[in-house]
């Protein structure tokens, strides 16, 4: 292999790493304390022949934030000097809260949003009915485990609404999915 091609390949890898770093720093429009990378929504960043191709996956099918994410990614990458940017949607495999990174979970908790527990593992057969509370959810403000679920649907589909019986503060929890 000649030095020229090796430098070229290194340059392409460098561009890809730079594009990935720019895309990874874009924050979620509805959870601005966490980046798309930490949320697990950013699936892939590739650079080929100068074109950046970013793959993202929706958290929920109807999540209107997906369009905002697409626009933000395009604007930030264009701003970083990448002229040709494509943003692809990927539906398979479906997003799960298990993809939220450790640093993302810490950022959520620091912002007063309770991070999700492990996503439910499904037994074989029909999806079982879940009628009782799934798990004790800790208050992100005071750490108390004495909390009450107010509603399984909060301001966005991805969160449920709770109240702490210790400090009396309401808080949101990212639902396991």
């Amino acid at each position: 292999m000649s030095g020229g091609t090796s430098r070229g390949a290194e340059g392409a890898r460098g561009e890809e790493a730079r594009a990935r770093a720019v895309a990874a720093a874009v924050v979620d429009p509805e959870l601005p304390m966490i980046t798309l990378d930490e949320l697990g929504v950013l699936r892939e960043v590739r650079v080929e022949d100068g074109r950046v191709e970013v793959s993202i996956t929706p958290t929920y099918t109807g999540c209107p934030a997906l369009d905002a994410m697409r626009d933000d990614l395009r604007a930030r990458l264009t701003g970083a000097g990448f002229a040709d940017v494509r943003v692809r949607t990927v539906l398979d495999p479906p997003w799960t809260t298990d993809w939220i990174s450790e640093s993302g979970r810490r950022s959520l908790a620091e912002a007063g949003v309770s991070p999700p527990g492990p996503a439910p593992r499904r037994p074989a057969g029909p999806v079982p009915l879940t009628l009782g509370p799934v798990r004790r959810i800790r208050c992100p403000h005071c750490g108390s485990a004495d909390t009450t679920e107010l509603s399984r649907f909060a301001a966005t589909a991805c969160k449920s609404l709770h109240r702490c019986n210790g400090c009396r503060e309401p808080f949101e929890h990212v639902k396991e999915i």
Partner: protein
Amino acid sequence: MSFDNALGAIAEDNDEARWAFGTGFHDPLAGIDASVPDGVDGADLAAYCLMLGDDALVMSHRLQEWCTHAPELEEEVALANIALDLLGQARLLLARAGAAMGTGQDETALTETVLTEDALAFFRDAPEFRNVRLVEEPNGDFAHAIVRLLLFSTWRLALLDRLTSSADPVLAAVAAKGVKEVAYHRDHAALWTIRLGDGTEESHRRTRRALDVLWPATGELFGVHEVERRAAAAGFGVDPADVRAEFDAVVGEVLAAAALPCPAPVPAEVAGRGGAHSAALGALLADMQGLARAHPGATW
């Protein structure tokens, strides 16, 4: 900060980011391989996706009508979130239908016949809709909303769960996401059904009445339209008759916990799937489609 300033601050940064309050949505299937797999008939796939998409679209609209009418703020937000999930499923399914419709025709016809999800949602008349009639019946009281959501989401969850192994990879992927969402919808409806049915005399009476009103429409959930029969045979769809046992078991469990009687099964029939609808759908569409038809292509 005044409201005007807050709105300005959202809009200022990026002209394209209008998602919070206007038009400008992208194709929900952008960048996804929309080709129709071998052995799958494009017209049947389109017709089948339209059925599932119309169920979600019309049910979403009925839930949206609860905005500013729900008995408490938390429940208002919950119904709106469920409506949003279903609207998202409808967009993907109608987009899939539009993409599959053109296949089997020559190249020049293709570009002209590919319909966007907006064209399908806003420019078809009632007889062209393929939803079951359960979702189009006008809203009643809150018990009616909850019982309908229980019946609808129990049925849809069973369908979507089986569709995760559809021979159409796009439909399979939409179903896999939908299962997770609709499981939350069903459990939410089940919890409320129990709270209302096993609640006060008044809430029990109203929930029982809602069940009496809605139950006759369940026969249509298990009727098999010829498109569904072919879709199931070709491996990309589900024979609705196959989900009846699961529906009966889940609904029976919830009704027993809610101290409500489980009505006798209704004979299967095909109506909405073949375009036979009640007058209520026409009124719903007049409301849903009015703006798009009066101002085609309007943006704001």
